[in-house]
């Protein structure tokens, strides 16, 4: 559990909501909704998120589900704030519990001022600052089914937070309008039942109040959706994948989006087929991508090496989860980095890009497609579970920045004027021109065997050296084109932080906490992690006295990669790691840095 547990002050020995009190005003609120899978915890989280967004707040939602369809403990969390955020709050302000397990699991994270709202149909708790209402029974009678208990709980929450009743209702209308008359009607009734019972209890109404924000004309999205949209807009027209948590939504979104643009999405029989189908489609001339997570990545490793050697552009989105083996499919980790940096047998070039938020996911997916075709090699989008699946209030995606660069692609007109066409022709930067099959007068022979410029298998040692150099030096020649890192915090700060992916959210928040304590920090968000951007990270490391590399794995994989690439900075690098399956909360980073100081 979270170290935040230690910060909880002892609670007074009384139970129930207690006497009415003036509302506690919050500008940053966290609500956790827990129960059994199927209790509708995600719906409550969704409804709250919608309300908060209507109030102009930044919203971040996360979920903690088990890898099963129904049952088992599941919880969802919503955080809303006046300021931009992309992390789970250090503690929970309000816990909504549909069973006792949810109380037991959630109360350790409860803030001293925290409140528990629970469904008392089947259990009762003796916690202070709590209120139990038999939501399932209350809705079960008039509505015929207890399943509307979640909407009733939303109603009670609206009383607890002093929500605007009309806006509260508008959220239900918006959420259920597509489901039709009866569903909407019953949910509206459930809402009123929840509101009524909460209003009747002392000490519940207006317990908290929430400030409004100015986050308007923003969208609430996930990294997976952003990657799918970036793929469409970046000209991606062929996708093959295999269902795997937490990557599946990329395929599902594309099944929805791509056919309208003449694209094809195929669910393959396994990840071996998925990567090879995209290799085939790319050879044919399409812009391609596949998405997967650890176990699928292990299978795709074979194909990625082939693509790099045969110089066939592919983009692979790796939605990291807890590994190794099946690991924890629904939980968060960033432990594929070392594998990806050293991917496969033999040696071959690849680029690894690490977006940190949905806008970054969108932009870097477009960029990955361009880089893959410009350099004719695999580009990996290094994502993580929190980035892929948690929803974040995000700026709208910017189409004006999008450009399509297909590299040295030969048109039939240009091809016709050539004296010869060599698919692996040597050039000063390792890039060869490509004419896809169907181009009149020429053909392309590609192979994963070592080959000569024509694509014929070759064991000639001089040719081997030339071809290895051609491929490997792409990582040097491409350096200036790879996405640059981002820097946050005062340039003269002497304490540095390095991170990648969704860890950026809690790191930025930790920077705020540290600044508040008088410790200015400078954060480098690595957006290209391989090849290591030495030209960016070396000067950064020179500018600070100490650097904390914050990442979600056991061995400190990014820190190791940096030490390996820049051994002269060895002494400056400190690892801050977490590998329990949950994302960092800002105070955890702060205390780990304090310990490491």
């Amino acid at each position: 559990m979270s170290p935040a547990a230690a910060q909880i002050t002892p609670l007074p020995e009384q139970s129930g909501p207690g006497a009415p009190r003036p509302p506690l005003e919050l500008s940053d609120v966290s609500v956790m909704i827990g129960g059994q899978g199927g209790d509708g915890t995600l719906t409550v989280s969704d409804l709250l998120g919608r309300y908060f967004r209507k109030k102009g707040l930044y919203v971040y939602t996360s979920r903690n589900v088990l890898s099963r369809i129904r049952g088992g403990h599941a919880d969802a969390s919503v955080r809303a704030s006046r300021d931009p955020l992309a992390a789970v709050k250090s503690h929970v302000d309000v816990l909504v519990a549909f069973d006792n397990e949810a109380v037991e699991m959630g109360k350790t994270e409860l803030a001293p001022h925290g409140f528990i709202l629970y469904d008392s149909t089947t259990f009762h708790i003796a916690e202070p600052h709590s209120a139990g209402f038999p939501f399932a029974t209350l809705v079960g009678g008039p509505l015929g089914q207890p399943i509307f208990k979640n909407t009733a709980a939303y109603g009670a929450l609206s009383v607890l937070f002093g929500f605007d009743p009309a806006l509260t209702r508008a959220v239900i209308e918006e959420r259920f309008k597509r489901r039709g008359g009866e569903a909407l009607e019953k949910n509206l009734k459930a809402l009123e039942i929840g509101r009524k019972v909460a209003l009747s209890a002392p000490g519940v109404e207006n317990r908290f109040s929430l400030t409004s924000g100015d986050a308007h004309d923003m969208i609430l999205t996930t990294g997976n959706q952003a990657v799918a949209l970036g793929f469409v807009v970046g000209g991606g027209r062929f996708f093959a994948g295999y269902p795997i948590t937490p990557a599946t939504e990329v395929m599902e979104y594309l099944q929805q989006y791509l056919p309208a643009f003449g694209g094809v999405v195929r669910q393959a029989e396994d990840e071996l087929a998925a990567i090879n189908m995209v290799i085939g489609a790319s050879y044919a001339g399409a812009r391609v991508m596949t998405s997967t997570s650890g176990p699928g990545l292990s299978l795709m490793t074979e194909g990625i090496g082939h693509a790099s050697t045969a110089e066939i552009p592919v983009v692979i989105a790796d939605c990291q989860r807890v590994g190794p083996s099946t690991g924890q499919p629904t939980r968060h980790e960033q432990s594929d980095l070392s594998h990806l940096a050293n991917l496969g047998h033999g040696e071959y070039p690849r680029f690894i890009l690490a977006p940190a938020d949905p806008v970054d996911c969108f932009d870097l997916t477009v960029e990955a497609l361009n880089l893959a075709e410009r350099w004719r090699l695999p580009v990996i989008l290094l994502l993580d579970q929190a980035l892929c699946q948690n929803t974040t209030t995000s700026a709208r995606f910017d189409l004006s920045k999008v450009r399509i660069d297909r590299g040295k692609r030969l048109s039939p007109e240009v091809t016709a004027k050539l004296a010869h066409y060599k698919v692996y022709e040597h050039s000063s930067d390792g890039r060869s021109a490509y004419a896809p099959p169907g181009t009149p007068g020429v053909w392309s022979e590609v192979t994963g065997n070592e080959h000569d410029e024509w694509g014929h298998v070759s064991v000639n040692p001089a040719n081997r050296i030339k071809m290895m150099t051609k491929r490997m030096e792409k990582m040097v020649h491409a350096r200036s084109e790879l996405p640059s890192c981002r820097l946050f915090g005062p340039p003269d700060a002497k304490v540095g932080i390095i991170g990648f992916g969704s860890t950026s959210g809690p790191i930025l928040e930790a920077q705020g906490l540290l600044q508040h304590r008088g410790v200015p920090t400078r954060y480098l968000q690595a957006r290209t992690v391989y090849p290591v951007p030495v030209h960016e990270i070396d000067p950064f490391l020179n500018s600070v006295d100490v650097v904390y590399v914050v990442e979600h794995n056991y061995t400190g994989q990014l820190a190791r990669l940096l030490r390996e690439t820049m051994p002269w900075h060895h002494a400056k690098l400190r690892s801050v790691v977490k590998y329990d399956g949950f994302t960092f909360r800002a105070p955890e980073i702060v205390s780990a840095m304090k310990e490491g100081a």
Partner: protein
Amino acid sequence: MVQSAKPVPPIWCPGCGDFGVLAAVKKAAAELRIPTHELVLVGGIGCSGSIHNFLEINGIHALHGRLLAQAVGVKLANPSLTVVAAGGDGDGYAIGMGHFMHAFKKNASILYIVMNNETYGLTKGQASPTSQIGFEGNVEPPFHSILTALSIPAPNFIARTFSGDPKTMIAILSEALRFNREGRGFAFVEDLSPCVTYNDTYKLWREKVLDVSTLEGYDPTDRKAMFRLCLETTESGRIPIGVMHRPKVSGRNGLEVKLVGEGPGPVRTDIELAPNLPAYQKLLSGLA
């Protein structure tokens, strides 16, 4: 004329059954007047998989066992191409078995030729999935590709040829390619292609092959009848060859037809930003 990769001399042993397939592919493609730049040959790993090196043609030397996945990718990306996958029995029935089974189900209009020599020739004669019991210590019964193919209820073209009978092979490969080019779906042709070095079966197979079309009750549109004929022929110690399944339905059933329809397909669709901008704006404006 732009100079592209020139064919290299085959690496095969003199007398290898694969020469028959090479010649038949050339003849069938010429017969159908398929322009070489529109023909893609995806080779597997093994002696037979190097076939694309010996032709003036677009060629992919795929990973071991993965040729079908790559071939399907090529076809779905650009349905106007004629796509042939060709490899050996180890490539297709051992490491590639998962993709083999799914190829029938997917039913993309590609031709898959398996040159079956009942051994791993390139690695010097180990037992393969089709090896007879006793061959190189093999204790597992041989895999029967035709019975397996017939057991998958999909409108595929299924046939078996013998390198010792080039005339029939050319006719069958031509029919298979026509079947593909009409967008009717997946065509599977297993060629019995003896390995003269490690498993020289020419004489044995010449004695044992039996053209199923000569048998009473032969009807390649009747899956059940063909399964029985093939099974009975095999159980009688003979090797059934000929067209084993020719679907009744004549429609365009290929996967690429279902996914791409009459559209240009992923490769020929304009992906530049400008023509797509209004549609992209609409897509993004749907986000809330």
